[in-house]
Structure formats: C-alpha cells, structure tokens
C-alpha cells in the first residue's frame, strides 16, 4: 500500500516536470513570435513618419529617387498569388481525386512518395527551371516581349503549392469511409457522381485545409518568384497585367535589403512592407481558419 503511494508520487513528479517543459516551450514559441513582430514594428513604423503617406501609398516604387510607393508591390504579390491559386486549386483537387479514387493501387504506391519528393525540391532550383525553360516557353507560345511575367511566377508558385494541396487533400479523401461510397453506389450513383456528391462533400473540410496550406506556402515564397517575375514594380490595372513583369513584396525585400543603408528611410520602408505582408498573411489565415471552423461546425452538425 505504502509503496504504491510513493510510486504514484514519483510518477506525478515526472509528470509535473514534463508538463512544465511542454508549457515552457509553448510559451517560448509565442514569445518569439511577439518579439519578431515587435522588432518588425520598431524598424518598420518609422517609415510611416519619415515618408509622407501619399508617397508611401503611391504607384511609384523608385527608392533611389525617394519614391516609395508600395502599391505596385502589393499588387504584384496579389496578382502572382491569386494566379497561382487559380491554377493550383483545381489541378490539385483533381490530382488528389485521381490518386485517392481512380488510380489502381500500384500506381498510387508510386505517385504518393513521388509527390513528397516534388515537395522537397528547393525553390532556387524551381526558379532556375522557371528562368531557363518556362520563361522562354511562355515568351514564345504567347508571343510576349519577355517571358519573365506575373503569369510565369504564378505557374512556378502553383507548382510549389501543388504537392501540399495534393497530399493533404488526398489524405482527406482517403479518410472518407468506404461505406459512404457503397451507400451512394448502391443507390444507383455512377462512380463520378459518387466522387463529386459524396466523397468530396464528406472530405470538404480537409480539402479546404489543403487549399489554405498550399496557398499559404505560395504567399510567403520569395526565391523562385524573385527569379521569374521580371521585377518591374508597377501597377498595371489592365487585362494584360498577368502577362507583364511584376515585382512582389517578398522579392523586393529580398533583393534590396542587402544593399540598403541601415536606418535610412528606404530601410524602414522595407520593414514596413514586411508589416504589410505580415498583416495580409495574418488576415488570410484568420479568414481561412474562420472558414474551416465554421465548416467543421457545420460538418459536426451533419456528421455527429
């Protein structure tokens, strides 16, 4: 009796230590995020006083002559990311459906690890591929003056988002119980009707998560985009904008941070761009998790 009581004491000590350790690491992670954000604010906020706001929110980015308009950079990021989303989401979903529902078992065994490999390709390598092969392909087939365009960036980013979208969406589809499919088939649904109306529907929240994770990867990507988008900072609100060179926020920071004088207005503006990027990413994540949250509540209502 006595022995068992002390034994219990010892395990609860270990448990106490483990809990403290886990809690400590959790708090550390949160503290680091706040520190980074505080640093970003400290370096970026001065930009809003040093540079007149009408300059900062103008359409001209030409730091050498003290034009610090960040609109073209925001615009560039949006065009490239939305383009990537439009390309990657349908292809990713269809590929996931193919692997989970249609491909024979042996093919699935080959494709799944292959996709993991694709996910591991460094973005510089993809950027190189984009500059050398994709951009000339784009220039020749679309008959453009240059192949380094927003569209080229979208294609490369879509390619980077695809492995994430495919593997997470495939898991979501795979997790839908076989009995759902049987139930639909037994009621006279064809294979396609079963996939669209039952399997995809039942795996909806997982598929949505897949999309968000994939696009999340695309927004923050720097290297490949820097290499293939042509780096022309301008707002071109015209139909052909997708096929012209643009410059994204991430590419601007990466390209210019190295050569700017620390503490200068230009330096602070680059950090301000970082703040804008941070806020946009934060909003996207917020909207996404809100959507997923509502989704899961709806499916919980439906599934429980």
């Amino acid at each position, binding site marked *: 009796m006595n022995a068992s009581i002390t034994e219990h004491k010892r395990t609860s000590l270990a448990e106490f230590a483990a809990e403290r350790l886990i809690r400590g690491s959790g708090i550390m992670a949160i503290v680091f995020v706040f520190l980074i954000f505080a640093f970003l604010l400290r370096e970026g906020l001065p930009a809003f006083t040093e540079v007149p706001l009408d300059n900062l929110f103008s359409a001209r980015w030409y730091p050498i002559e003290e034009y610090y308009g960040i609109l073209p950079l925001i615009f560039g990021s949006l065009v490239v990311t939305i383009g990537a989303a439009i390309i990657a989401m349908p292809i990713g979903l269809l590929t996931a459906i193919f692997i989970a529902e249609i491909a024979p078992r042996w093919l699935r065994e080959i494709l799944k690890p292959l996709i993991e490999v694709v996910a591991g390709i460094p973005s510089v390598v993809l950027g190189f591929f984009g500059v050398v092969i994709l951009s000339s392909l784009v220039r020749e087939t679309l008959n453009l003056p240059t192949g380094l365009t927003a569209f080229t960036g979208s294609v490369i980013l879509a390619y980077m988002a695809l492995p994430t979208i495919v593997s997470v969406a495939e898991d979501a589809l795979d997790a839908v119980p076989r009995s759902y499919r049987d139930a639909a088939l037994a009621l006279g649904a064809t*294979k396609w009707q079963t996939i669209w109306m039952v399997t995809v529907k039942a795996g909806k929240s997982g598929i949505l998560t897949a999309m968000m994770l994939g696009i999340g990867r695309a927004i923050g990507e720097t290297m490949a985009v820097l290499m293939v988008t042509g780096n022309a900072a301008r707002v071109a609100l015209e139909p052909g904008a997708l096929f012209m060179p643009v410059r994204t926020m991430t590419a601007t920071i990466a390209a210019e941070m190295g050569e700017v004088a620390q503490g200068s207005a230009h330096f602070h503006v680059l950090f301000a761009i970082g703040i804008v990027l941070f806020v946009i990413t934060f909003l996207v994540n917020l909207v996404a998790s809100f959507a997923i949250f509502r989704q899961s509540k709806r499916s919980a209502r439906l599934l429980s």
Partner: protein
Amino acid sequence: MERTPKIVIEHLNFTYDDGTESLLDVSSTIYANEITVIFGPAGGGKSTLLRVINRLNDLAAGKSMTGRVLLDGQDIYAKEVDVTALRRKVGIVFAQPQPLPLSLRANIEYGPRLAGVRDKQKLDQLVEQSLTQAALWDEVKDRLNDSGYALSGGQQQRLCLARVLALEPEVILMDEPMSGLDPLSTAKIEDSMQQLKQLYTIVIAPHNIQQAARVADNAAFFLQGRLIEEGTGKQLFTKPKDKRTEDYIMGRFG
C-alpha cells in the same frame, strides 16, 4: 401458386484478392414475391453473396469470380448491362447504416433524383411512402430537413431501408438490417415486409435465427462459403435434412 424464378445463381465462386475463398460453387434460385432467408455462422459468405448480386464487389476487393447470376434470365455480369440501372432494380440495405452527409429528405430523394425523377410532388410522395413502409414516418415527419446523422442508430437503419424503398426496386437485399433495432421496430418492419413482398422480391440475411425462422418463405443455409441446404422455411427450420444445418439450428435454439 405458381412460383416465378427471379434470380438464378449458377456455380458461383468468389475469391477476394487476399485469397479468401468466400463462395464455393453456389447454385440457387430465388423466387419472385417471396422472402428468401440466407443464414449461417459468421464468415459463411452471406454478405459476399448479396454484394455479388448487385455488383457492389465490382470495384472492390474481388479477385476472381466464376459462374453466373441471372436476373429475369439476363446475366447481370454481361457486358451490355448498365450497372447503375441494375443497382436501382436490386437495392441493398447494409448491416451498418450509413446515411449520406445530407438531410433526411435528401437522403431519400437521392436515389430517385439520380434516376431522373424531378417532379416535386412525386418526390414528396416517395419520401412519405418509403418512410411509412420503413416504419419511420411518424418519428421524423416534422424534421425532414435535419441531418441524417441526427437519428438514433436504429432510426438510421430504417432510414437506409426507406432510401432503398424509394428507388422502387424489384429486389431488396437486406444484410442484417435489424441488428440495431428494438423489438417493437423489428416487429413493425417484419409486418411491413409481409406487405412489401407482394411488390418485391426480398432476400434477407438476418442476424438471428429466430427472426430467420419467422420471416422465411424460403431459406438457404451457408457454411464456410458453401450452400449446404435449401428449402422452404418451414421444412428447413423444423425438419432439416443435413446434419450440419440441424446442429446449427439446434445449437441456437438451445
């Protein structure tokens, strides 16, 4: 009364792709407007047989199948057969009820809509009629727009039966459809089956032998993939010819 053969099974063998031989040289005839009971111990091949009859094993783990299954004299595995049309004619109710992620009403309308029924009045009528036949209408008539998952297990089972009835099939296969039902609902459904057999051919693999004996016009005993004995319900459950059938029935009856 003249008996019309509805389904004829000829020398059927079925092996799953892991090598399990689930049906061995099964030949049998299922007659129209009768309740045929297939029974036997677990793993005897009852579910496999039902799934073969409406071709649900097509996509799945079936490694090899030989023999023929004829519906009204037509080989259901022939090339020209439209599988979805076949499955509408031969409905199946599974042991584990699986509502689709839709409302109650949509669960029932799903099959008829796929078959091209669009008329609102016809759909409403199908919903009420099939839920009534499945002894569920009174419990759910005020909440047809709730999720199919908002029902108890036994209600879900009756929902799945109603869903199949709404297809207005010719044959209804029931794989342990009453395993989750209380005695009252079981009695209701058994009653309703006596009515339904005027319209349909019913094949049922009940989960207990008393129920098998209660509903069977015709019965077949399966043991380890083989059809051991078949006959009228009366004959099989009171005077079985085969020793193994007798042992099984006696064992269960105590």
